[in-house]
């Protein structure tokens, strides 16, 4: 039995199956990310004055990722147009670019995650706080590249934007003087928790998109010859998903990196 409306539009909706399906899926995705944005707003507004991080994330890397994703949205559109006009070589080229840009985005994101993972806040027994990137550690000592601040000036750790050229020194700490040592992972505070949740979910979407785009670029191209119109529709559907992922980032970037 042949499935109807895989390429032709249903008379009542004016859309083929997959297109209606992807729009319904994207609507559910808006609800998923909407819930997280809502959680962010509550956490942000509920944070005590001066204790919400500013300048913890690299605006430069965030901007680079914004442009990478915008460019990949364009190459995926061009891949679809190449499909429409029947230019196989250009389709392969544009889709390969999309895949490369997506992987570059993930690499940049991984670098940012790693940077947070090796960044430690160390509470010392004398009340002071050491903050910086872990250089090396052994059973006796921990060495970080950062600074030490008095315990009553913890707020300095939150607003990095207002502090220009923070001095960084190599600091060797004796483990016997350390009270608590914690990296800037998801459990560090509510900001890192929501940051890793939102960007992690977004990165998973990028990864999922890579799998689909990779399939359509590689083994999936068999359909180019057997059912070209359906293949073109698949490219359009994957493109719509990709644009949505770009849309989410368009809001994630200012919310997490700039405000």
């Amino acid at each position, binding site marked *: 039995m042949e499935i109807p409306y895989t390429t032709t*539009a249903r008379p009542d*909706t*004016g*859309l083929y199956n997959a*297109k*209606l399906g992807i*729009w*319904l899926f*994207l*609507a559910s995705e*808006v*609800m998923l990310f*909407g*819930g997280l*944005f*809502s959680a962010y*707003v*509550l956490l942000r*507004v*509920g944070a005590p004055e001066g204790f919400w991080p500013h300048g913890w994330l690299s*605006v430069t890397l965030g*901007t680079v990722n*914004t*442009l990478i994703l*915008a*460019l990949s*949205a*364009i190459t995926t*559109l*061009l891949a679809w*147009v*190449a*499909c*429409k*006009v*029947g*230019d*196989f*070589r*250009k389709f392969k080229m544009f889709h390969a670019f999309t895949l490369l840009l997506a992987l570059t985005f993930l690499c940049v994101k991984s670098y940012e995650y790693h940077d947070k993972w090796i960044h430690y806040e160390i509470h010392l027994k004398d009340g002071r706080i050491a903050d910086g990137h872990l250089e090396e550690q052994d059973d006796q000592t921990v060495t970080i590249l950062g600074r030490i601040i008095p315990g009553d000036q913890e707020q300095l750790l939150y607003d990095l*934007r207002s502090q220009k050229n923070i001095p960084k020194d190599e600091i060797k700490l004796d483990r016997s003087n350390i009270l608590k040592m914690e990296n800037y992972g998801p459990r560090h505070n509510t900001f890192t928790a929501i940051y890793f949740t939102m960007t992690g979910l977004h990165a998973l979407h990028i990864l999922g998109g890579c799998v689909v785009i990779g399939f359509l670029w590689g083994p999936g*191209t068999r359909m*180019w*010859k057997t059912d*070209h*119109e359906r293949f*073109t529709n698949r490219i359009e559907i994957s493109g*719509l998903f990709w*644009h*949505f992922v*770009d*849309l989410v980032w*368009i*809001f994630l*970037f*200012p*919310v997490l990196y*700039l*405000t």
Partner: protein
Amino acid sequence: MSDTTSTSTSVDIKSTARLCGVVLFVIACTTAVMIYTSFQPFGWPAKVALILGVAVVNAFLVASYLMHLLSEKKMVFIVGFFTVCFFISLMGLTVWAMQDFPVGTTK
């Protein structure tokens, strides 16, 4: 595999690439505006409103030109309408919840 197929279409790569170039340029400019704004000494609410306003312009560009929302069928608009209604309600609930405290307590 053949390099060409016989698909009749009204789109062409060059004109789409030109349009995409314009969209990319505008997105880059608006992103620069957002970053510039974030470093200005405005009050936090004004800054957030301005930055999110620019982000909405960016989102509009992507949705209308790259996702072809401007030329979509009525059904897509209906789905979009309900989605936007949900999103606004969700954010409205969030704002409402921020003013809602148990009886006898204050913020």
